[in-house]
């Protein structure tokens, strides 16, 4: 039981940029601010992918990034999860249709998709919380119930709606 709670309260992140415009990176960097107090929740940024539990993937998956991204992903020790941050790794956003573009899901097994261009730090934290739940289920071998799946799908839809409306995102950011 303590082990399970320990893994929920000790989460190390590793951000990986596979071809981003740096908009999502700026939002991720904002998580370092005292306002979000990641340290107090046991969340830290790891300096090596081998220490990390969650990979924060940003940007489109360019042909040159594919092999490197796969290598970085292989370095994460299990249980591990990937959060695709922003529209680019999900559907290419403004780069959709560009030569060589492929969704990140074709290269890496994305666990949590967070749409937005860019998503706000609060939404990134929510996506991290969803990934932590997945890590916990992976560790304990539990399967998600249908009710939880429905709830998650609903939350995903809400997130998409919020991502479409920048004013709502700002409102949610207020402490």
């Amino acid at each position, binding site marked *: 039981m303590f082990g399970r709670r320990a893994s929920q309260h000790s989460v190390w992140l590793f951000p990986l940029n596979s071809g981003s415009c740096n908009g999502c990176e700026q939002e991720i960097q904002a998580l370092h601010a005292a306002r979000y107090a990641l340290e107090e929740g*046991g969340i830290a940024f790891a300096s090596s992918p081998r220490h990390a*539990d969650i990979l924060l993937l940003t940007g489109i998956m360019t042909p040159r990034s594919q092999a490197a991204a796969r290598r970085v992903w292989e370095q994460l*020790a299990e249980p591990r999860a990937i959060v695709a941050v922003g529209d680019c790794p999900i559907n290419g956003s403004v780069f959709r249709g560009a030569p060589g573009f492929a969704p990140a899901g074709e290269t890496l097994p994305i666990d949590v998709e967070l749409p937005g261009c860019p998503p706000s730090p609060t939404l990134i934290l929510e996506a991290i919380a969803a990934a932590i739940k997945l890590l916990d289920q992976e560790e304990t071998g539990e399967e998600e119930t249908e009710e939880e799946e429905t709830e998650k799908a609903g939350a995903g839809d809400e997130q998409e709606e919020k991502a479409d409306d920048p004013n709502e995102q700002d409102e949610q950011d207020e402490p």
Partner: protein
Amino acid sequence: MNIVVRYAITLFLFPGGVFALLAGWVLLWLSEESGARVCGTLRRGFTQPLRDCVKLLGKTTSLPAGTEAGGARLLLLLAVVAPLLALVLLPLPGNSAANTIETSGDLLAILLLLLLPVLMPLFLGELLASPYGRIAARREVWRCGLLIGGLLLSTLTIVVQRGALSLSILTLQQLHPSPASVMVNILAGLLFLLCLPALLPPATWGLFSGSPELIAGAYTDLTGAGLALMLLSAALQRVAAGSLLAALFVLPFVTNGLIAQVAAYLATLLFSSLFAGFASGVSKRYSFAR
């Protein structure tokens, strides 16, 4: 009491095992807490070092391809076992097993056991087939060499002054010390304290400094249980190093009974850990010139 029971208590309860782990956990957290307060940064929770360790033990452990796996695993285990053994051998208040040992050179054994976790990253850097480990090993050689030289010099001073290499003689209570003897002890103790950070494995791996930059270290390529053993080793070494300082330089001058000795021992542990934490982890806040 049966000698086996005595050793079991010493190894698993006090001063090894349970006590060492609890004390290491508290000292590690206090060191981080005080460092964060001084630097004005956010603090981690009290249970965080324990949670990190438990989580890491539950993760998959792998070593980089091309690593001397047997040697690396042995070094990682030694890094945890060595400070525990050093604590068993140290004649601390309440350690009944250590008082039964009478060997002439056990101080050398203690020093070797305390230096093993310090030298381990240097060997591990070469064994791990990790470029980060090698870079860190080369960086650490000079720093460790200088500080370990200081530690050996202060210990040698006490050995010459008290005329023995045996801990049972070195830690005998100094009932009527001469002023010159007290002065030598204070100077040697201060030198030992100044060089104490050399006995503690590097605590700043970049993980807790909030820096997303890759910081080269022997730990960079470790995962799961390997990393957890390093965390444990850092906590235990903190207790063992403070205990040696107390046993050699403080406890021989505390002659007011067991309770006073225990209080002096715990105070020395706390002070040495905070000092070493400040010396190795706290940096001055940047101030803008206006």
